[in-house]
């Protein structure tokens, strides 16, 4: 039979250009932009690091390699749990899928918690991304010595203005307390004495003041060897004490023994290190947090086969976050 005798209408059927869903295509396009984003950050770090005159060793900046290694294992495990979640969802095992998604959420939270601990360790040593919080100086030179002197004078200034509680004040207050019919002037005097007692310099603070004044004398020098000795006394560098090849962590130092001192420290290359470290790990942590938010939202879903596409897409994002850390860990902790 010819088409002229039995015409039939041609029914056009939509053929998708790519064999994947719109959501998955979008996620892969987004990941392509993320590849560029982290390539820029990591590439900048590599170029800055290997073009720098000097760079601190991991122990100079209080990085603990074991913590980074543990974080790597945590993220790898979370990648495994998310693919197990997907496999369970595809076969409509919603309970199992939810358990694995919960495990992923927990492992991601552990990673962020460890990151917060690492950041607090840096901050407690005066390592911040930028001034004015950052107390890092590149060289033990005159500028460093004057910064140390300025901080010591700040401490001694705050302590010097405190009143001294003498034996005479004790007796005067006791006499006023014992008196039952005090005049207004005596009441005012009593209140002033009580305020003086509450704000007076303590014995511990007096010892601190004496120590600070003694230390201040050491800053009155122009000899670079003496200034460097002072810097090592304040915050000893592992690479200076033990050599530059994976030196053991340097412990002690005035800043560690007396956290209230918060004196400037010398870490050659430390400012650039801090800037790149906090930038790289900060952006990575933000990406981890975004992933955890999505996981938390999906915990309220019914994780069945219909949700498998969404789970796969968020899983792709999570695997990419894991990928970035796979490169960040050796670059930041082991190089």
């Amino acid at each position, binding site marked *: 039979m010819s088409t002229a005798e039995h015409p039939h209408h041609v029914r056009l059927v939509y053929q998708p250009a790519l064999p*994947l869903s719109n959501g998955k295509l979008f996620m892969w396009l987004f990941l392509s932009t993320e590849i560029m984003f982290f390539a820029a950050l990591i590439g900048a770090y590599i*170029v800055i690091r290997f*073009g720098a005159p*000097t760079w601190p060793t991991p122990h100079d900046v209080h990085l603990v390699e074991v913590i980074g290694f543990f974080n790597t294992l945590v993220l790898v495990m979370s990648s495994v749990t998310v693919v197990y979640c997907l496999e369970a969802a595809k076969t409509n095992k919603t309970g199992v899928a939810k358990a694995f998604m919960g495990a992923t959420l927990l492992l991601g939270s552990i990673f962020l918690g460890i990151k917060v601990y690492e950041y607090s360790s840096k901050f407690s040593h005066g390592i911040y991304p930028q001034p004015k919080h950052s107390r890092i100086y590149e060289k033990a030179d005159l500028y460093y010595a004057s910064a140390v002197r300025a901080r010591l004078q700040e401490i001694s200034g705050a302590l010097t203005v405190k009143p001294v509680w003498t034996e005479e004040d004790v007796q005067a207050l006791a006499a006023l307390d014992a008196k039952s019919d005090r005049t207004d002037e005596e009441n005012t005097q009593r209140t002033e004495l009580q305020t003086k007692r509450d704000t007076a310099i303590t014995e511990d603070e007096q010892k601190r003041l004496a120590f600070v004044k003694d230390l201040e004398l050491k800053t009155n020098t122009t000899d*670079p060897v003496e200034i460097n000795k002072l810097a090592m006394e304040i915050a000893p560098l592992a690479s200076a004490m033990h050599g530059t090849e994976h030196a053991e962590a340097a412990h002690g130092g005035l800043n560690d023994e007396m956290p209230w001192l918060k004196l400037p420290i010398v870490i*050659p290359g430390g400012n650039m290190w801090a800037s790149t470290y906090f930038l790289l790990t900060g952006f990575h942590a933000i990406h981890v947090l975004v992933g955890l938010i999505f996981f938390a939202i999906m915990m309220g879903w019914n994780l069945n086969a219909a949700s498998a596409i969404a789970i796969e897409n968020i*899983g792709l994002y999570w695997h990419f976050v894991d990928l970035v850390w796979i490169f960040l860990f050796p670059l930041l902790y082991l190089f």
Partner: protein
Amino acid sequence: MTAHDHPHDPHATHAEHAHSHTGQYFAVFLALCVLSAMSFLTYTDFWRERFPVEAGRTFMMAVSCTKAMLVILFFMHVKYEANWKYVLTIPPAIMAVFLMLALVPDIGFRNRKYSPERKARMAAEASTDSVAAEHGAEAEHSAAEPAAH
């Protein structure tokens, strides 16, 4: 092709691989753990006493690339995807390499030439003897290229 042909199912890839991959995922997880331990091996005294720093770094990056490929191919299912994966991954990878190379002349080589004033404020390797460090820095300045770190 006629109208009776069925449209290509976007989820055909999933249907083709409906069997479980859990055993494969666990094997990849074990491989990732072993590779992570291997990269940590470069941190130990055993490695440091036998191999130069550059060999350690090359080894670490090779291990990282292997781990990345395992995650990409198996966890992200790229091994089973169609040719679109090349369109979406190869151009960004090329651009990423170019991006890094573009930074080398201005940023990577920024310390190749410097004035005495800049040198005076530049960081130097930490030393308990500052005088020795100063002499070492002067030797570096007079050399053809600064030492790699």
